């Protein structure tokens, strides 16, 4: 059996996506070092089309679109990763407990997860943010709250499969406590599919944050891609670059995380399609 890295390297789309994500992370790290935020100044060069001095043009306040775009990476990645990690932890714990202990709690959790899948999550998120006020941490919390059932479902299924395998019975015969078996033996072996789902949640979270910002549900003083599309909406007739480039940024980032999630899933599951 080959190593994970070796098998992953054969997924060409996944590798390209991983490189793109690495580039975005690099922008987040390098941005503050070269004073990107300070470069984001208003100027008299208002609504200038893409040209030599401003490769992606300027907005209605004279800010450089490229600089804004690079600053927006931070918000998107932060919301995406934070929401995905929170949802994965929550979903893993709930799903594992639900699958391991079964019974009434299991039934209740799975019904709750089902309800979360029926409720239009964007509207719920938008109402929550509209009433409680925008703020990145609130947005992260709301997205995580809406996304955990996806992880819980996968985790529960894995736990149900693993807990009856022979090696778990063997550990049980050694006299370890059930909670120890769950955390030390079952969950670590079920974590792989959670990784695939979690990666896709990063993409969903970025998309959801952008949608909320497009609805005007983000703080005015933070540059984000969704907010750029929100302000670009007013200039669709005379400044196409204000809407075009942030959209490309969101699309390619979300696509990268979806491809990455697909590739991780395919790598971990050799029986899977493709």
């Amino acid at each position, binding site marked *: 059996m080959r190593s994970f890295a070796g098998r992953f390297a054969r997924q060409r789309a996944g590798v390209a996506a991983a490189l793109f994500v690495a580039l975005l992370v690099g922008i987040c790290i390098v941005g503050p070092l070269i004073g990107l935020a300070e470069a984001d100044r208003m100027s008299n060069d208002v609504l200038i089309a893409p040209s030599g001095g401003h490769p992606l043009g300027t907005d209605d306040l004279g800010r450089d679109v490229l600089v804004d775009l690079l600053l927006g990476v931070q918000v998107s990645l932060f919301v995406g990763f934070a929401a995905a990690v929170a949802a994965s932890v929550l979903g893993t714990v709930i799903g594992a407990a639900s699958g391991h202990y079964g019974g009434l709690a299991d039934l209740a959790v799975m*019904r*709750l997860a*089902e*309800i979360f*899948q*029926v*409720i*239009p*999550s*964007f*509207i*719920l998120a*938008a*109402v*929550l943010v*509209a*009433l*409680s*006020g925008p703020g990145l941490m609130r947005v992260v919390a709301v997205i995580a709250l809406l996304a955990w059932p996806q992880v819980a479902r996968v985790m529960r299924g894995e736990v149900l499969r693993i807990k009856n395998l022979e090696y778990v019975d063997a550990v049980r015969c050694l006299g370890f406590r059930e909670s120890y078996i769950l955390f030390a033996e079952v969950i670590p072996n079920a974590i792989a599919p959670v990784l695939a789902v979690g990666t896709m949640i990063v*993409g969903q979270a970025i*998309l959801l944050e*952008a*949608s909320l910002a*497009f*609805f*005007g*549900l983000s703080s005015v003083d933070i540059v984000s891609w*969704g907010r750029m*599309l929100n302000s*670009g*909406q007013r200039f*669709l*007739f005379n400044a*196409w670059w204000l*809407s*075009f480039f*942030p*959209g490309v940024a*969101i*699309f390619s980032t*979300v*696509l990268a995380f*979806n*491809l990455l999630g697909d590739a991780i899933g395919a790598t971990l599951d050799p029986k899977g399609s493709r």
Partner: protein
Amino acid sequence: MWRYLFARLAWALPIVATIVVISFLIIRIVPGDPLQALVGDFPAPPDYIAQVRHQFGLDASIPRQLWLYAGNVAHGNLGFSFANRQPVLELVLARARLTLLLMVPALTAAAMLGIVMAVAAAQRAGSAIDAGITALSLFGYSVPIFWLGQLMVMLFAVRLGWLPAAGMISLRTSPSGWAAVGSVLWHMVLPAFSITIYYVAVVARIARASVLAVLSEDFILTALAKGLSHREVVWRHVLPNAIIPVVTVIGYNFAYSLTGAILVETVFAWPGLGNLFIASITNRDYPVLQGILLVSAFMVVLVNLATDLLYGFLDPRIRRGYAVRHA
């Protein structure tokens, strides 16, 4: 059939109850006066505020408040929008109708397009159409739908000038008669088309899997063996069986497509739920936001229920309990 019907109803009721509880909790969790969440920030007469305080029992205990809230919702009392001078339920239902007006043709087109693509792809596995469906579904799951709408505006309305960029009806058209219908249809093309593109991505992938599954059934082999042409087999035996999962997927994904429609219509200033939502955010008209949440959640549950029944009707194995529902 009756047992199946009751089972599905028993599935829907707790969901409706949970939605009402969530909506109630939102008012309580949010920092600030719950009265503000129930009345909104628009200046309201003191008499009305006192009435709301009494009606929702804001001085009473939390369980009692929940009970009163559920009672109000059950009676269709979702409050009054002072920004719009209209009861919330009436307002939200009127706008929901316009959103559905956009969604129904868009989803129908997406379903037909998706099935046609799936059948075409199934003729030759691994063909260009096959790859196209995979690419399209990746596109649909990754693209911000409102940006897709903005691209449509920039291309077809601004650049080419073929179609109107915003609104539902031309101001120069008389508000009734065939001219009005024509104008509405004309304004519908771009937003509906945006939803269709977005949604074909979902449908085509399911339809492809479904067509391939049916093609591997024994009765297809039988049909071919008795001498039917490939075309006849596809139309008479593959399509009717492959359509069932497609219909159910559209139904069960109603929440997803509703969200898409709400986001798209704000780009086109289509006066549906999305625009009402944005206007209510600006006006801090909180009861309307809650009304939109409740009404859209109920719509989703209803569509899910209808899909269940349709599924049971189309596929006797389901209603007799031979197969489990897989969403």
